[in-house]
Each structure stands twice: as C-alpha cells, then as structure tokens.
C-alpha cells in the first residue's frame, strides 16, 4: 500500500509556528524578512485553527489483507 503522505503534517505546521515565533523575537531579523515571516505565521496558524475546527474523527477497520473498511459505530454493543 502506497504511503499517503500529507503535504504538511499538523505537527510540522506547529513546529514551524514555534520557529517563526522565535525568529520574530530575534531583533537582528530585518523588517522585510520579519513581515514575510509574520504573514506566513498568520496564514499557517489560521489554517491550523480551521483544520482543528473542521476535523472529524476518521475510523476504519483493518482486514487481514491489510485493506481498510469503514467502521460503523453500531458495531459496538453496550456491555
């Protein structure tokens, strides 16, 4: 099964935001670069927030041949 590589994982996005925050705090960073970083950071953080707000838990079930089938919640019975 081919690995479905997401372009940028959520964790990578958060790491980048931390990095941007640190760079912005660095006073030696130029105005132009700072503004570019700021714009990138704002864009990224808004993307993350919308990802989180729109997230819906995905559940699948693994079969013996490694293929996945959708999981139905009513497969769980109350004990």
């Amino acid at each position, binding site marked *: 099964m081919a690995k479905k590589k997401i372009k940028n994982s959520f964790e990578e996005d958060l790491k980048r935001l931390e990095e941007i925050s640190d760079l912005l705090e660095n006073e030696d960073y130029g105005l132009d670069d700072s503004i570019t970083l700021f714009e990138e950071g704002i864009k990224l953080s808004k993307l993350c927030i919308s990802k989180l707000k729109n997230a819906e838990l995905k559940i699948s079930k693994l079969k013996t041949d490694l293929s996945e089938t959708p999981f139905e*919640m009513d497969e769980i019975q109350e004990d």
Partner: protein
Amino acid sequence: MENQILTVSELTKEIKYSLEENFSRISVIGEISNFKSHISGHWYFNLKDSGAVINCTMWKGFNSQVYFTPADGMKVIVNGNLTVYPPRGNYQLDSRSMKPAGEGELQAAFEKLKQKLKSEGMFDEEIKKAIPAFPQRIGIVTAIGGAALKDMISVAARRFPLVELVISPSSVQGAGAADTIVNSIKQLNKRNDIDVIIVGRGGGSIEDLWPFNEEIVARVIYSSRIPVISAVGHEVDFTISDFVADLRAPTPSAAMELATPDINEVFGFLNEFLYNASTQIESVLETSSEGIKRFLNSYAIRYPLDQVRKNQQKIDHLTGYLVQNIEKKMLLYRSKLSVLNKTISVLDINNTLKRGFVLVKQNSKYITKAKQFIKNEDAELQFSDGEIII
C-alpha cells in the same frame, strides 16, 4: 493366569484394556515439567509431584481451549484419559482440559515470565520508544464489540479529532486470543503510516486478562517497530504487556489520552502565537520607524540640507545685488539717452528743411552733388511741409 504364558502383545493388550477402562475421565493434580509445544500444535509434558511422574499429551483440538500457555513449574489440574501405547510399552495421560490448580499458580507463572523477560532486558527504560505528540494515525488492537473501543473512540473524538483510528480487530480473552493479538500487532507493523499502537481491553478477571500475560504477546510488542501503549483492565491490573510496552496506561481511555494532544491546548498555543506574533511585528515596525526618524535627524542627512540652505541664501543675496546694480546702470543709460535724444533732435533734418533747405531725389535716390543731377528727368523736391515733383 499363573500357568498361562502370554505374548508381550497379549499382556500389553490386557494392560491397555484394564488401565483405559479404569482410568477414563480422571482428574489429576500435578506440577508441569518438560513442557513442549510441538510445531504441529500438540502439547507434550510431564505431570509430577514429589514421588512420581506421568507423561502427558494434549492434542491441538483440546489445547486450543486452554486460555493460558502452561509453563514448567505451574501446578495444574488436568482432566483426561489414561492411554497405553503398545509399541513403546508406556502409558500416558491424554489430556482433554487443563486449568491452574489455583489463582496463585497464574500469579507464579506471571512472576516467572516477568523475571525471565526482565533478565533479557525487555523492560529496559532505554529501549522504550517515544510516543509521538501529534499522531496522524493510531492503530488500535482490541475487540470490536468492546466497551474499551467505545471509550477510546469518544476520547479521541473529544481530544484530537484530527487523528485517524485504524482498528485491527482481535479477541482479547479466552483461548487463542493471544494469537489474534499477535497477528493484529504484526498487521499494523506492516503499514508505514501508523504512528502509535494501543493494545488493550477493559477490566476482567485474571483469566480474562491472561492473553496479555502471554510470552508471544510480550515478544511481539517488544519487536514492534511502532511504539506501543498497553492498556489492560483497570488501574490496579498489571500485565506483562504493560511492562514490555513503550508506555503503560491504567485504562484504555487513559491510553487514548496519552496518545493524543488536547485540542484546547493546541488552540491555546495557536491563539498565543497569533497574539505574540502581532505584538512582535508591532515592535519590529516600531523599531524600524524609530530608525527612520533617527536617520532623518542624523548629521549625514541634515548636513547636505544645511549646505543647500546656506547656498540658497548666498544665491538670494547675489541676485539682489545683481538686480540693484542693473537698475543703477539702467538709470544711468536712461539719462544719457535723453541727452542724446536732444542732440539728435537738434540735428533733425526737418529743422534744417524748415530753415529753407530742400532735399532732392531722382530715381528714389538723394542727390547730394551737382554732377549727380540728371537734366530733363523728374526730380523730387522735399520741403519741410511736403514734396513736389518737377
């Protein structure tokens, strides 16, 4: 019987008949030794006590009903039939079922396996893999119908719905459960997109939880490429899986909490970033604009401006001086001009004409000498008050 001579086969046949007739469906208590699980799936072992030993077999079809894997030294109660094997002339207990002689037996087996695996370094902290903080996919090894799964799903949905759960179903209690757990963990390890595996089940008796005390389960967790969180039973239940796993969670819900970040904390981080970044960029802008002001007020910028102003003044001064001089000169020339005008008016030809002189013109040319005059040709005589032609 005394005088009768029996062949070995006849004797053995008698023994077989007698023993199998009298010792069918018997229960025997004893300690297991020399236990071997053959590749065929059959079990071979001895039962012994301080005074005797008996060979035992347990065929695959029966031993698959035993929820635990026997180990040497474990005291068990075996139910079965005595059988005689004539070619070897021996007898053995053909076991049909087996159970521990008491709860202490399972506990003892547990301690023994724990010590064994520990001495192999399988519980060492240094080899434990880190649990990723932001998993994209979590593999779950548990029973499909269980409450544990339901709990884990609701925790994941609440804490970090960005994650994807991949369930690798297994049975979690009874005979054969250990094999399905092993298989499920192996299946998940065949994929390369699973960040962490949670192996577990809800609470139950020591028998229920036993699959998680099996050596094969411990070994597959140990060799799992993907980090494993073990979550078996309640807080008070400890299994071999818990010791060998990269992380032990007291319950399946707790395992999911350990495997996922809290969405509110992530929101907090993001909002804090937005606030901090804005503050930081404002201060960058402030610093830059101060720099510009400082630059504009600097000597380097002010000096040329001052020079320009100074020169401007000089130019203004010179221009004023120039204008003044020109005006003076103009005045001078004007008075000279009026004197000259007077002189010219004295010399004006008309005044001369008025005094009685005449200008003579022939062919539009002034005749100033007598020899220029041509007789019999028109001449134009100019008086002070007009011209006549003669």
